């Protein structure tokens, strides 16, 4: 005898039923952290055509492969010079603890790259530990201070974020502790909303003037970045170029967040792969490749991802979630007093487990990364976190140069689209590279 056969609905599967029943019980949408969990075409769908008889490789362990990266060479008199093309994406103090911001700065400084502030302003910890710090100018202007503009190495005007383009931001009350509240001029414990529009300008024509104001304030020394969440990327990049940006940051839908509506994370924006191709097309269309630098972000994880991004035309990448994972996000344990201590019970209390956690919004991060709780934040020792992150960034960079050498490049920026093929028709169409084993790029004549 066998029991009744259970047949799960494709349309109303257990996940959908859970969503509807939770909505019915709460009357509120779900909010969570990190990025899209659905599978979308991504860099894993591309492969490199390394050297063989028709290409000549560099010796992998001996020959030099340059990773130096210059950003902001268009108008700024003091461009950003980085040792590697891998930067730390903007993440707020509020979402992250001050100790985490400190760790990010230490690691970035050690490997010669930049960190970026986020909503809520600049902490002394991150300024002190970061040799190169990019200061975000966000719609909320929480904690925005001209003294910090003067202390920054570049300014990044944030139009949108890949996880939630057009959506502003939020920081739930449990993370608005006294210091966060003071920096953001908000009541302690309030469920804070960040505006989705800048308060003092409304469109691309205004952005031209806003950028010039920032240039005047910084005496034209500091590069001005413009960051967009990936939607209508081709047009947005062209408008940002026309507005006078030195650097454009495009954040794809796999980009992370500390707290956003799930419906936003999973259903708004386009994949990083498609966004990057559109951004490069826009720069090419304006003949601005090399004049305006392009930074791509949103789900970048490995040296392979970075190499593919550079081959497609990015000048650099920015990493957020990968950086948090390197610090210990979703680890089973945290380090205290030189010992690895289990965090499993804390994951269980949140109703999750290592490898699945996206509970940044709760402020109860079991490993002390995305928290403002005085006890939990101690679970991240800045020195330990910085060491782990430095290791990760070095590994990613080594992977990048390994691939570049195999493709015969003496400079990682020499990687090119011709080095790539796609595994799927979708990725071939989005990236604009041939399907592997063919010369076919969907949408283009053979």
């Amino acid at each position, binding site marked *: 005898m066998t029991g009744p056969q259970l047949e799960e609905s494709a349309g109303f599967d257990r996940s959908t039923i859970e969503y509807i029943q939770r909505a019915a019980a709460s009357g509120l949408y779900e909010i969570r952290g990190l990025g899209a969990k659905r599978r979308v075409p991504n860099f894993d769908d591309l492969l490199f055509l390394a050297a063989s008889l028709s290409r000549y490789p560099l010796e992998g362990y001996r020959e030099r492969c340059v990773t130096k990266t210059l950003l902001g060479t268009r108008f700024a008199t003091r461009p950003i010079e980085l040792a590697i093309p891998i930067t730390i994406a903007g993440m707020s103090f509020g979402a992250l603890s001050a100790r985490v911001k400190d760790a990010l700065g230490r690691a970035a400084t050690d490997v010669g790259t930049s960190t970026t502030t986020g909503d809520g302003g600049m902490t002394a910890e991150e300024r002190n530990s970061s040799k190169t710090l990019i200061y975000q100018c966000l719609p909320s202007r929480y904690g925005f201070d001209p*003294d910090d503009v003067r202390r920054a190495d570049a300014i990044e005007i944030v139009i949108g974020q890949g996880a939630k383009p057009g959506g502003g931001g939020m920081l739930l009350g449990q993370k608005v502790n006294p210091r966060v509240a003071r920096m953001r*001029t908000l009541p302690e414990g309030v*469920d804070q*909303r960040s505006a989705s529009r800048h308060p003092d*300008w409304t469109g691309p024509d205004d952005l031209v003037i806003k950028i010039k*104001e920032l240039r005047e304030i910084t*005496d034209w020394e500091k590069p001005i970045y413009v960051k967009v969440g990936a939607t209508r990327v081709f047009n947005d990049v062209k408008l940002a170029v026309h507005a006078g940006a030195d650097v454009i940051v495009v954040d794809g839908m796999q980009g992370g967040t500390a707290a956003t509506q799930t419906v936003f994370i999973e259903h708004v924006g386009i994949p990083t792969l498609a966004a990057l191709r559109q951004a490069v097309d826009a720069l090419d269309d304006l003949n601005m490749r090399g004049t305006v630098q392009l930074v791509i972000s949103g789900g970048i994880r490995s040296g392979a991802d970075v190499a593919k991004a550079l081959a497609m035309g990015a000048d650099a990448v920015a990493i957020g979630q990968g950086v948090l994972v390197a610090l210990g996000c979703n680890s089973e344990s945290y380090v205290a007093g030189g010992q690895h201590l289990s965090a499993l019970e804390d994951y269980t209390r949140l109703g999750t487990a290592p490898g699945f956690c996206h509970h940044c919004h709760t402020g109860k991060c079991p490993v002390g990364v995305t928290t403002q709780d005085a006890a939990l934040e101690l679970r991240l020792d800045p020195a330990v976190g910085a060491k782990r992150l430095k290791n990760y960034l070095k590994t990613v960079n080594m992977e990048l140069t390994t691939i570049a050498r195999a493709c015969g490049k003496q400079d990682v920026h020499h990687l090119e689209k011709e080095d790539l093929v796609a595994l799927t028709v979708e990725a071939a169409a989005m990236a604009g590279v041939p399907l592997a084993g063919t010369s076919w790029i969907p949408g283009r004549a053979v």
Partner: protein
Amino acid sequence: MANLNPVPNSREFDLARDSLRDLNFFMHRQAAADGVSQIQVKNPDGAHSIACGLNADLQVEIHGHVGYYVAGMNKHASVTVHGNAGPGAAENMMSGRVHVKGFASTAAGASAHGGLLIIDGDASLRCGISLKGADIVVGGSVGSFSAFMAQAGRIVICGDAEDALGDSLYEAVIYVRGKVRSLGADARFEPMTDTDRATVKNLLGEAGLVHDPAEFKRVASAKSLYHWHADADQEY
């Protein structure tokens, strides 16, 4: 090049001849070394970003109309516009004083953290949007969505207010003398206290305006949107 005035601590810039860059650079980097504390600006002709990013106790007099972001992110300085101002006057001001003798366009005093912004005439849409602690006194009326998401600070409106005044307010307080076409979400009228009347009197005095504080109404946050819950009729 700038001209030397007979007054030793004064410098005049004529934007019909001198560049904006020269003007702002001088105020940022040179004025203190030259012992200059008073700046006269002639022929602004609607230029944007005049006197933005100041970080010193300068007295700046601008004779004419200005464009966007006059005195943006001001610290310490006192800037007077003898004319009208474009969008974002004194945006993100931290301290000091900005006085627009004429009218101000949209987003006057946006996200200003401190200092005093005085507008003798009317202010357009979104006056005091995202205000973070500065004081704003408007001699005339304000446009719609003024004080949107204003977090801290005080706004005194001697005339009327258009739609959605104080939408999504946090802790900022608005005093309005004339009619309010409509209040925004979570904004409400509250009784004036003796402290409120003293505040209005003081701010009017600083702005050189004379009105009876008893004529003003207080608008503040009902705080029903501070914490999200299913029964609040909220759109976000």
